[in-house]
């Protein structure tokens, strides 16, 4: 990894430079589509307390002034829409807990109107944070290729019995908005606001400006990542598997792609949304996962998973293709059914394999080693035709061979079917016994045994 760092950096630089200029997005097909729009909704506190004196002026006027400067810097960015919601602008006889309004709907080229609306308001009401967050549902409206970001600027806590934490969590899960940003003016309210989103404390004007700058940079930073799938030597050489990055909060697939090595043989770089925490699932067999992966905004994050894989194939001497059931050693759950004529890749480890020959073949604790093809042998079966002269009842057994622990015992293979006068079976090589009796007989003494050997590729006819 250390050796490849300069190359990675170079690639990263290339992407951060070329990316925005060419409008070329590395993103794969995903729910967001290709031309993503970032929608920033500013939820602004115009409650009475904002009129208080702070530093050089009132809190409200300073907050508006600094925000206006930041907004000016976003002018002309076609991929960013901005909107304004304000709470507490009305002077009411008592506290009005629905005192929250869309002042400027989300859109481009509306920075001037946001600035002038803010200038024209005077802070006077209460602080209905939970209610305001709920109202953002209608502000955002449905959009498949949008990243919805809330920036809450407030100097006070919820004043209306709402539960802003719960509302925020709920709306994030529903995918209404990404994890919100909060700037707390004056007092440190970190403890109360941490559950709503990323909290920034603004004890003074300077802190406030820094906080807004950081939030905007974080939101719009070109951020990339790569997924290193390590082989047995610790090198990121494993590839060509499907990788899904799920939004850890909403559970929806955010990116879905077939893992690729670029021209240099290194894992291809992806542009990632830094405001999302990811659950990564790599569709090896069985799947690999890495939960709650955090991506640093503006940086290149390498996500590493141990994906040592080996292959399993069958040397099948038979014409037939058998389903082969693959389980993790000692478990019952089938993770895959591999047809015997295929070669499939598995994570290195120990597996139990059942081949649906007749009788079934069981391979226990098969070690699939990294970068190695493990081969299992399926002998050619023989073909057996059973003819019933009169309908019979009975079963077919295999005699356990001498290398089995249960030597001498009979392994039940199949029932005879009295409704089929001719029954054709493909049986694995071995010695078999058919124990049967005419269906119409009333005496156990009429039970008969018929022994026969099956050899690979041979045809045997047995009349009962």
């Amino acid at each position, binding site marked *: 990894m250390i050796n490849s760092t300069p190359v990675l950096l170079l690639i990263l630089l290339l992407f951060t430079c070329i990316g925005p200029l060419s409008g070329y997005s590395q993103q794969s097909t995903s729910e967001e589509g290709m031309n993503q729009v970032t929608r920033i909704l500013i939820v602004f506190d115009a409650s009475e307390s904002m009129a208080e004196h702070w530093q050089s002026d009132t809190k409200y006027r300073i907050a508006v002034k600094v925000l206006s400067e930041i907004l000016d810097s976003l002018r002309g960015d076609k991929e960013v829409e901005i909107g304004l919601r304000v709470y507490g602008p009305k002077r009411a006889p008592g506290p009005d807990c629905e005192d929250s309004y869309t002042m400027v709907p989300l859109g481009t080229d509306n920075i001037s109107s946001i600035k002038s609306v803010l200038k024209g308001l005077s802070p006077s009401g209460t602080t209905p944070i939970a209610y305001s967050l709920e109202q953002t549902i209608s502000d955002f409206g449905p959009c498949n290729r949008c990243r919805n970001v809330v920036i809450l600027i407030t100097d006070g806590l919820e004043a209306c019995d709402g539960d802003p934490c719960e509302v925020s969590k709920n709306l994030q899960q529903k995918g209404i908005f990404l994890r919100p940003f909060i700037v707390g003016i004056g007092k440190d309210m970190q403890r109360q606001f941490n559950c709503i989103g990323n909290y920034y404390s603004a004890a003074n004007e300077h802190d406030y400006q820094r906080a807004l700058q950081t939030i905007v940079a974080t939101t719009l930073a070109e951020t990339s990542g790569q997924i290193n799938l390590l082989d047995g030597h610790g090198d990121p050489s494993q590839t060509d598997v499907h990788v899904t990055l799920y939004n850890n909060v909403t559970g929806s697939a955010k990116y879905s792609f077939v893992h690729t090595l670029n021209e240099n043989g290194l894992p291809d770089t992806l542009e990632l949304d830094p405001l999302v925490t990811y659950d990564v699932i790599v569709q090896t067999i069985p799947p690999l996962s890495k939960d709650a992966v955090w991506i640093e905004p503006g940086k290149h994050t390498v996500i590493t998973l141990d994906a040592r894989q080996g292959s399993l194939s069958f040397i099948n001497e038979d014409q037939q293709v058998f389903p082969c059931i693959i389980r993790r050693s000692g478990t019952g759950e089938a993770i895959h059914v591999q047809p015997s004529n295929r070669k499939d890749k598995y994570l290195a480890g120990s597996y139990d394999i059942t081949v649906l020959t007749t009788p079934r073949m069981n391979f226990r604790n098969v070690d699939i080693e990294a970068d190695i093809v493990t081969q299992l042998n399926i002998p050619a079966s023989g073909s057996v035709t059973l003819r019933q002269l009169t309908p019979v009842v009975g079963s077919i057994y295999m005699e356990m061979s001498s290398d089995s622990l249960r030597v*001498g015992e009979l392994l039940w293979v199949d029932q005879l079917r009295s409704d089929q006068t001719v029954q054709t079976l493909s049986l694995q090589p071995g010695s078999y016994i058919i124990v049967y009796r005419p269906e119409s007989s009333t005496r156990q*003494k009429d039970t008969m045994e018929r022994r026969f050997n099956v050899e690979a590729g041979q045809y045997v006819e047995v009349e009962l």
Partner: protein
Amino acid sequence: MKMRVVSVLFLLLFAVAFSNLQAQTDQERDLPKPVTRILFVFDASQSMIGRWESDTKFNIATRLFSNILDSLRATPNLELALRLYGHQRNYPPGDCSDTKLEVPFSDDNTSQIKKVLRSISPKGITPIAFALSEAANDFPPCDNCRNIIILITDGIEECDGDPCLVSAELQRQGIILKPFIVGIGRNFKEQFECIGTYFDAKDENEFKTALKIIISRALNPTSIQVNLLDIYGDPTETNINMTFYDNVSGKIKYNLIHSMNSKGYPDTLEIDPLVTYDIVVQTIPPVRKDSIRLTSGIHTTVGIDAPQGFLAFRAVTNATLKNTPCIIRKAGSHETINVQQFDQQEKYLTGKYDAEILSLPRIIAENIEIRQNHTTTVEIPRPGIAVIQTTTNGYGSLYLQDKGKLVWLYNMKDTPAHMETLYLQPGDYTVVFRSKYSNKTFYTIEKKFTINPGQTSNVRLYD
């Protein structure tokens, strides 16, 4: 008379069948009567000269034994043999290998056995363990023989051997059935019980009785009837294979198809009473009943719970699922008990089962209840067809969309055909594909499609 004609016809048919047979087969077995072989291991050690009741122990034992032998003369399917110990070397010091098969097995040698016994005089030591281990070779190989040892002795092992171990080993190997021992004079029950069934003979009368009981136990016909019980406790289940294993040797003694006789009752089987049986009834899953002991000469009825019902699978049309394997497990268990073809009905013990149908995607039906004489049908939707087309080779996977999550189902074949046809159960699917020749993640193609029952969806992985 009519019956005889039928059975002759039957035999003829089988004779014809044999001649056609290409495989190596064994002769059909119409349960021929087994030959009972009794080896008497007789004590001729020095102590047998000791006085007992009216005469010496040896003389009395020989006289009473001879009477029993006379009664066995001309018994069909019976062979006898005699091994002595302690009759060749004087004690002391005695010789621990002093034992010899004096009369080998034959069906007409009672006179010879009597003659040998009259002609020798007891003089040596008591090497019981060695005599038993040697006795293993006295039984010539035989497929349908019951090998019994009757040990007649007035003393315990004197040669540091372990007769218990030898006896257990010979029984385990299936060479002999559990031996009988008659102890003359003193009570050796404690020392001999591990060797076999012990009879105490304090006096002449007891000795005579013991021999009679042993002979009758060995030769009395004994029968067993196995009642396969349904859920109501009635013996209605039948036509199932039952295997009787010898509990000690693990060997198969009888392998039969359970039958109802002409009166509708479970058929009776004549059976060796000297064996303890483990019975396996080959239902799915099999039912076992272990350590079944019989009393000689008495009819025993064994009840085994084997209530059964049927399991079937069904889709609107079975054509595409016909050969789909369905893995059957006991509910909640990991162990496969059967693989049933989708279009075949199968019988199971009543109870709850899980079935995993190897359709695409696999369908797991849990807690399927099988009820007595009832057919439980698991119905699944009719599959549809997906024709997935690409323009190049590449890496592709097929997923089921399940509540926003993608569940991996299948990796597409990397073949030049550029087309794959898959039978899929109705549902929403996603296929993710990237050309083999692309080195950009960006070129991943993702297509969603829906499969409806019986309908074909064309999925083109190119634009």
